[in-house]
């Protein structure tokens, strides 16, 4: 059976794409952010995942508001990035894993998570940038499965639902008849708000507690409604739901391998949390 080696939660601000393209990793502005990654690269070198399941939210590349699935999953042989309209460089396509995609679809729908399945799917910066950050020299052998959650148009799935969805992903991967080693990524957050007169809102105290609880007691998050989470973390801070699904997919106990937290990248509190299954 497949093995889940661990999970990595990481921010996905579009601006990071320009820093990577411009080789700005050691500039004063970017250094505290990029310096968070080498210990995670070392861990990835050790656990050697074959597949990355990436839980993220689309920002108007693959999905417009004409059709907005709550949970969707890619089932393609390859995933392309494309022009998102805000001037970040487009990156090369990523390899899919159709066997795992369809195993996940079968298992998750059996578990009563009624996903939208996508045999064609464009992946935006929320999928591509975390992969670029975690594998700065592209790992061409790495296969990927995108899982997209609606964090754009309310109502959104609750924290409780996302955690349960993650736990169903855990069961699905663990029942996959494969010798593959799987890493799960959750992208977005942490606290930030782009719009309104509260734009620029950041909540360091909550973010740090959230990162801590995510490791030790992820059910802690489910005490909050999505409105509570917006109030606590900003309208885009709600992307922490992707982190929560990722954590659920790691099963019961995990240990933190490495964390980093830096304010600001663009308007965002940038978090990084790598966890190993135990």
């Amino acid at each position, binding site marked *: 059976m497949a093995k889940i080696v661990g999970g990595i939660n990481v921010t996905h601000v579009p601006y990071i794409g320009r820093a990577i393209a411009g080789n700005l990793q050691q500039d004063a502005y970017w250094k505290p952010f990029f310096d968070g990654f080498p210990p995670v690269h070392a861990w990835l070198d050790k656990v050697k995942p074959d597949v990355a399941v990436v839980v993220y939210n689309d920002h*108007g590349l693959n999905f417009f508001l*004409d059709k907005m699935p709550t949970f969707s999953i890619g089932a393609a042989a390859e995933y392309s990035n494309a022009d998102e309209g805000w001037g970040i460089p487009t990156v090369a396509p990523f390899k899919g894993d159709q066997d795992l995609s369809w195993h996940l679809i079968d298992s998750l729908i059996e578990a009563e998570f009624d996903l939208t399945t996508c045999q064609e799917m464009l992946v935006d910066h929320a999928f591509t940038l975390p992969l670029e950050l975690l594998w700065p020299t592209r790992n061409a052998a790495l296969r990927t499965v995108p899982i997209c959650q609606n964090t754009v148009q309310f109502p959104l799935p609750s924290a409780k639902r996302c955690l349960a969805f993650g736990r169903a992903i855990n069961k699905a991967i663990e029942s996959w008849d494969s010798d593959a080693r799987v890493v799960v990524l959750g992208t977005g957050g942490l606290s930030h708000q*782009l719009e*309104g*007169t509260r734009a*620029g809102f*950041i909540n360091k*105290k909550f973010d740090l507690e959230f990162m801590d609880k995510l490791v030790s007691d992820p059910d802690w998050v489910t005490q909050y409604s999505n409105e509570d989470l917006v109030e606590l973390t900003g309208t885009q801070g709600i992307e922490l739901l992707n982190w929560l699904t990722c954590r659920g997919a790691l099963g019961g106990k995990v240990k933190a391998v490495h964390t980093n937290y830096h304010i*600001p990248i663009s308007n965002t*509190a940038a978090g990084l949390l790598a966890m190993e299954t135990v």
Partner: protein
Amino acid sequence: MAPKTKRVIPGTTLFDGDMARKGYALNKMCFSFNSEENRQEFLKDPGAYCDKFGLNEQQKKAVISLQVLDMLAAGGNAYFIAKLGGIYKLDMQDVGAQQTGVTKEEFQAKLVAAGRE
């Protein structure tokens, strides 16, 4: 049926069904800006491009004057408005500063200060 009661979060509007209905034409126009060809067409004649997507007067005025809070009030979604901002090379600090009525430097300083708390 009783009217819906909505959670009030200061300085924040949740992009819910009411906003999604209200802002559909505006957001659809902004979605079209994923294409360079469409961005160029918009720049040639912003008003005509707004008309092509059926924006109402409130939306059109907000777009032409590039007032982000007005676009939000007209149902604009932050991610789609950002695609319009991209045409004018506005980054999220420009947009944040405009909405909060401060200079870009002041807005950036506020973000940095949040990291020291």
